Each structure stands twice: as structure tokens, then as C-alpha cells.
């Protein structure tokens, strides 16, 4: 398989700033908004967003939590291995809140469906939006689309997209393996 850089750290940085601007446009003061990073990989994008946001918008405070949706997946007992759950920390009421789910890659849409079902068990939010860094177009198995996306990739079966979050900001990178 050939590994190609799709986005480098500069490009990711620009994208994250754009995504934050789009969020501010729609959520204004974030009073009724909760950003939710999806385990296991979406929490890193959430961390990046919070990091950039806190430096540039010191007057706004964002409520954020992490969500694991393992028990809501639709592939239980379909695979060789049992998927190990990660932690959720939604200790606030999400009733009537505007939820933004955050994940690194949108692929078949099944993870997002599981996450939306999982969110239901914490209450009835006012709305749910989806933000992803990478949207793998034409691979959807469910009618799910992102409200905010960093970049779209056209991939074929067998392609692998990996988002690597480096310890230093300069090391963030998105690869396509084909």
C-alpha cells in the first residue's frame, strides 16, 4: 500500500480555524451548546478545537464532554473481536441543548448513528449537529451528512484514511493509504 500525505499540519491548522469560525457563526455565545468528542478518535479533534478556541476567544466558554457509543454499535457479535469500550463523561443534562458531535473521519455513518442513539440515553437535545475533519464521500451506508467538515476525500474500497495527532502541533497529519 502506498501512503500519501493528504493534509499536513498547516492545512489542518487552517481547517480547524475555519471550523471554529463556522461554529461561532451558528452557536454565537455557546450558552446552550455542548461539544461532544466521540471516542476513541474524535476526542483529539475536540481537544485541538478547544485549544485553538481558548487562545483566540477568551470571552467565550465552551461546555464539552466525551462520549463512547460502543454499546450502541450495530455490529455487536459480527466481528472476531469484542470492541473494548472507552469512557464517557456526560455528567450534565443535555435536555434542550444544541449538541455538536465531533469525530475525525465520517465514513459509513454507522458510528454516528450509534452516537446519536447513545446521546438519547442522556436526554432529548434541541438539535444534533456533526463536525468531522475528513468526510469520505460516496462511502455512506446510512443517510448521514456532516454539518461541518474539514475536507472531503473520494476513496475506493480498501483505501485507508488515518488522522495522526502529533504531540507537537507541527506533527498533525492526514494520510491516505491506497
Amino acid at each position: 500500500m502506498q501512503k500519501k500525505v493528504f493534509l499536513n499540519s498547516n492545512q489542518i491548522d487552517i481547517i480547524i480555524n475555519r471550523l471554529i469560525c463556522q461554529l461561532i457563526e451558528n452557536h454565537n455565545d455557546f450558552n446552550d451548546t455542548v461539544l461532544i468528542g466521540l471516542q476513541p478518535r474524535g476526542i483529539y479533534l475536540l481537544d485541538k478545537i478547544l485549544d485553538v478556541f481558548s487562545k483566540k476567544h477568551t470571552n467565550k466558554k465552551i461546555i464539552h464532554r466525551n462520549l463512547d457509543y460502543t454499546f450502541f454499535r450495530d455490529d455487536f457479535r459480527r466481528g472476531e473481536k469484542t470492541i473494548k469500550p472507552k469512557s464517557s463523561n456526560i455528567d450534565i443534562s443535555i435536555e434542550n441543548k444544541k449538541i455538536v458531535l465531533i469525530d475525525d473521519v465520517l465514513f459509513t455513518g454507522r458510528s454516528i448513528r450509534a452516537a446519536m442513539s447513545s446521546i438519547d440515553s442522556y436526554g432529548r437535545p434541541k438539535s444534533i449537529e456533526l463536525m468531522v475533519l475528513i468526510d469520505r464521500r460516496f462511502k455512506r451506508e446510512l443517510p448521514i451528512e456532516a454539518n461541518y467538515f474539514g475536507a472531503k476525500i473520494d476513496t475506493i474500497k480498501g483505501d485507508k484514511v488515518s488522522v495522526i495527532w502529533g504531540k507537537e502541533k507541527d506533527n498533525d497529519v492526514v494520510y491516505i493509504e491506497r
Partner: protein
Amino acid sequence: MGQLSVDNLLGIKYLKTEDIDLIFNTADHFKEVINRPIKKVPSLRDITIANLFFENSTRTKLSFELAEKRLSADVINFSSSSSSIKKGETLIDTVNNILAMKVNMIVLRHPNPGSALLLSKNVNSCIINAGDGTNEHPTQALLDTYSLKQKLGNLDGKKILIVGDILHSRVALSNIYALKLLNAKIKISCPLSLLPREIESLGVTIETEIDKALSWCDAVNVLRVQHERMEKSYFPNNREYSMLFGLDRKKIDKLQKEIIILHPGPINRGVEISSELADSKDSIILDQVENGVAIRMAVIYLLASKMNYQ
């Protein structure tokens, strides 16, 4: 490790330390689930579980049923008093008939030791032992050690005392196996008449003086005197047992240190433990009950994950 090393939960004896770690880690997540406003996940919506209780039970039966329902399994309950067992049907025939109704998993409580093992060898289903006579009660030991771990942290080297009717207790044996796997030090204290032969071979020490035993331990698991399993008298009377081995505030205050008190229930208040102590802040009896649901959800979920999708 992502999977249990066993296909049935027949006893702690058959588990590895990694299995217990996996069950505890999974239970942590289910504990979060059962504290949500909606305490249900859809994982087992295509699984049917039969709870076969050939002995009386309140806590264990309700806890299993709640765990199964929280996992969205279909649940059927069976009690021997209203069944064809009374007409002479064998255990294996009864279970095979239940399995013919497309049941996927059996939770069995039975008065005969080894009944869960017997069933696992003769029927084609996943079996969870919910207590087999005086042999094992694995989910009780898992929830006891899980509750202890929440209070004491790592159990490696921790001193755990088991007091009570060791001879007739399946909880004692399962707890000893579980605590050994977690590297805890175990002491037991009871009248010599209630001490099983060769119990030391399991790696436990014995102390018949309760005050000495209590001053040694970090936590004490108080077991019920099981009058229903006693064919003869093992001690003169409840009052004498209570004076010598029953836990009360006076015995605990003498220690001048805090210890954690567990009891698997049901409690004989005033016999093995005083009411005051059972309801005190030292007791984690209700934590055990809460953790029981999470532990049983974890066990059922992990065993179901090994069953092929049909």
C-alpha cells in the same frame, strides 16, 4: 485482552486474572450506563436469556433480570416450585426444552454443587452459574471484589477477612478464588465446626479469635449463617455465635482504625452483624448491590460477545 478465556461462567476457579480485569473494566462502563437517565443499551436485543432458579433468591435473581433488561435481552423466568421438575423431569431435559424455544443463554441457580458444570457439558448453550449449592457463586465474588477494589484500589497485598459460615458458603469459596487471583491476603474466621477440611490448601490462614482477625484486616466480608443447609447444629445457639463471631460497633471501635464491611445478603441482623453496623458508613452493602447489576451486565455482555451471530 478483549475477550474472556471462557465460554461459560461456571466458577471463578475457571477464570484468569485477565478475565477479572476485563470484567471489571467493562463493569466500569456499565456503571456509567446505569447512572444515565435512560439506563438501557441495545447490545443484546437479539438474545433471549432464561433465568432458572431452583432455589429461592431475591437479590441475585432481580439483579440478573435487571442486568439482562438493561442490555435489552428478552428474559424468561423459571422457578422450580411451579414447574415440571415436580413431575420428575430431569434438569437436562428441562433446559433442552427451554433451549428449543430459541433461548440463547441460561442463568442457573441450583442446590446441587456442580449443576452448572453438568449443564454446560450436556446442553448447547452459554451457562452462567448464579450459585450451585455450596460450590460457587461467581458473580457474587466478582461484585464483592469489584466493590473492594473501588474502596481500596489495587487489591494486591490487601488483607481481607472472611467471617461466618464458611462450610456452607458458596460465596466464601468464590471469594477466595477471586481474591487469590487478585493477589490479596486472605484470612478466615469462624467456629471450628464451620471450617471446611483442608481449607488452608487454598492459600488462606485461619484465626478463630475474631478480635485478632479484625485487627489484621483492611476489609471484612461477613457471611450469613446458612441454617437452611445445616442438617445438624454446628454451634449452641445464635446468641453465642453472635457474641463470639458476630460483628458489632464495640468490636469495630476497639480496632481504632477504619475497615470496610461487606455482606452478600440477606442479613440476619443481630446474628452475624448488628443492625447499627450494617447501616453504618463502614458498610458498603448497598454499594455491593448497585455494583452487582454492573458486574452482571459485564459478564452477560462479554459472554454474549463470544456467541456467533445467527
